[in-house]
């Protein structure tokens, strides 16, 4: 199977502060040398704690951010350094859904115009055809045609996220990057949106990159999962493998830290990590996880592990768990 999206040695650096501030100009390595393939039709889950670079990676993949280093090959085209103008036709193929449906919809425009906007920009269709397409899209995301004349504030959070999804699928993209699409929603509504995304994927043959911090949601939707820590992927493999037998000590701790509502009465062995995620401005030497790692050795403090194959997956650890 050829990958839909081939990402090699992707890095994204941000400059923070200024030359005139006390600490001077500093560089944050938000995404650090990420190599990854997204396969046609799969859902790739990106998980990690806040500041691990998962959202930045998502935005680099959609080229909302210019990348600092590396190569992005989407559907056979190298898009790493395309100008905004040259990128434009490709934007139809890569769409994005954002976390906060309140912030990502213009409050002064009707739903009809919000959903029609990508159609007007990218396709030259007559008005009647646009209206038909909007009605069709509303139906696909589970809204009714009379919702088209309303404004975003008239909708609940879940319905707004449906509008955001309708916009994203309007141009029949190949890849949709979902950045925390359900984290702002109530639990009872989350399941609706997760199901809707699964239905649309089947029906429209979509490929998803699903960025989220909620591990139970990521497990539910993902074919494969990439676990990130301080800008790098520490483990990458099939969703079921990662959850049943995590190989990286960080993955293991992360999964064990999730409170489990379905297993309330039995106590599980929990690994509580000490300390916080270090600052990406001054990451630790060696393995970036070693200051919090329960099984760190001397080698981990000096030599940075590479993401290498380990049974069915890839893991960046000198001493992967068996």
């Amino acid at each position, binding site marked *: 199977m050829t990958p839909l999206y081939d990402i090699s040695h992707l890095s994204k650096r941000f400059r923070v502060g200024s030359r005139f501030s006390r600490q001077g100009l500093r560089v944050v390595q938000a995404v650090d040398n990420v190599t990854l393939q997204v396969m046609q039709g799969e859902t790739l889950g990106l998980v990690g704690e806040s500041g691990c670079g998962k959202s930045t990676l998502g935005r680099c993949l959609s080229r909302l951010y210019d990348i600092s280093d590396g190569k992005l090959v989407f559907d056979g085209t190298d898009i790493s350094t395309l100008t905004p103008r040259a990128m434009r036709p490709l934007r139809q193929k890569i769409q994005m859904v954002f976390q906060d449906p309140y912030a990502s919809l213009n409050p002064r425009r009707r739903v009809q115009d919000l959903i029609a906007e990508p159609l007007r920009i990218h396709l030259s269709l007559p008005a009647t055809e646009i209206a038909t397409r909007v009605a069709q899209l509303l139906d696909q995301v589970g809204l009714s045609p009379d919702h088209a004349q309303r404004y975003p504030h008239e909708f609940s959070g879940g319905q707004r996220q449906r509008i955001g999804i309708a916009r994203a699928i309007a141009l029949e993209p190949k890849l949709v990057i979902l950045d925390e699409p359900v984290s702002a929603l109530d639990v009872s509504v989350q399941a609706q949106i997760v*199901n809707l995304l699964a239905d649309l994927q089947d029906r429209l043959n979509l490929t998803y990159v699903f960025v989220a911090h909620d591990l139970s949601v990521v497990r539910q939707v993902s074919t494969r999962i990439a676990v990130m820590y301080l800008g790098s992927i520490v483990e990458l493999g099939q969703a079921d493998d990662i959850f049943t037998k995590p190989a990286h000590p960080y993955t293991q701790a992360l999964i064990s830290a999730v409170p489990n*509502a379905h297993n309330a009465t039995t106590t599980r062995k929990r690994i509580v990590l000490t300390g916080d995620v270090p600052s990406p401005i001054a990451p630790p030497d060696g393995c970036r996880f070693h200051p919090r790692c329960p099984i760190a050795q001397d080698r981990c403090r000096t030599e940075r592990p590479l993401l290498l194959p380990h049974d069915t997956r890839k893991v960046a650890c000198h001493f992967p768990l068996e």
Partner: protein
Amino acid sequence: MILSVRDLRVAFRTERGLVQVLDGVSFDVAEGEVLGIVGESGSGKTMTVLAVMGLITDPNAVITGSILYKGRELVGLPSREMRKLRGREIAMIFQDPMTALTPVYTIGWQIAEQILTHQKVTKSQAWTRAVALLEEVGIPRPDEAVHRYPHQLSGGMRQRAVIAMALTCNPALLVADEPTTALDVTVQAQILDLLRTLRQTHGSSIIFITHDLGVMADVADRIMVMYAGRIVESASRDALFAQPRHPYTTALLNSIPPLEGPRPHRLQSIAGAPPSLLALPPGCAFGPRCPLHQPQCDAAKPPLIGTPHAAACILVPQ
């Protein structure tokens, strides 16, 4: 009982009429107990504890019912009297530690201020106690941390500082409103561990609010499920998770994706969205979304029946 709430009702006068945000809420908190309140946004869980804390100061709020704290009526208590209780007897931990702390003073200053307000001690004694408290909540190098400003600490450390502040006077009742929601899971696990330890060392009763049933399973002894301003189910933690009675609780549990075992092809979701408090149905508020809905559900609001496992649903056999 350290806290006894009976038929608590809170309504707000608005341009569009009276909005009943709490509709006859009754519950007790026993000494040393952790009571969990779970519900979605707008279910009234935060409003319940704000009423207990006497923090509903909106002139358009109408509060009726009874809140007995150690036998003393808190509804209608003058704010001067309430202020003496708050912080000393009842303390609160908020969701967002950044807004709960003042950005312009050091952590130590803020904790010492709290001690000086409620106890007759000297400044240096208050400062020493602040350092000791920071050490107790697990902040590394507490003697340096007291001199830090909130923005210099990470989210988890800030929440620890807020917890230290809440503990200054050994409160008999600690109210924690989504204390871990803003935190990462690994840090959340640390804070939940800390609350468990503190409950043992200080013997405080805790009211713990969260929308996350997983967190609830971790910390609560007894759980109350709220929906549209009413309690729909109340039971011990084990009973609630083993045999949920209210269709809403069951549906809520089913809509959480499992962490182990086979993945369901589809999640069981709850249709629709939580109702607007401005237009509540006359019968059961969950009725329109309920998979077991019957015509008689719309007749009247079902009462909360059963001890110790109570549910507000006419379809539940008593």
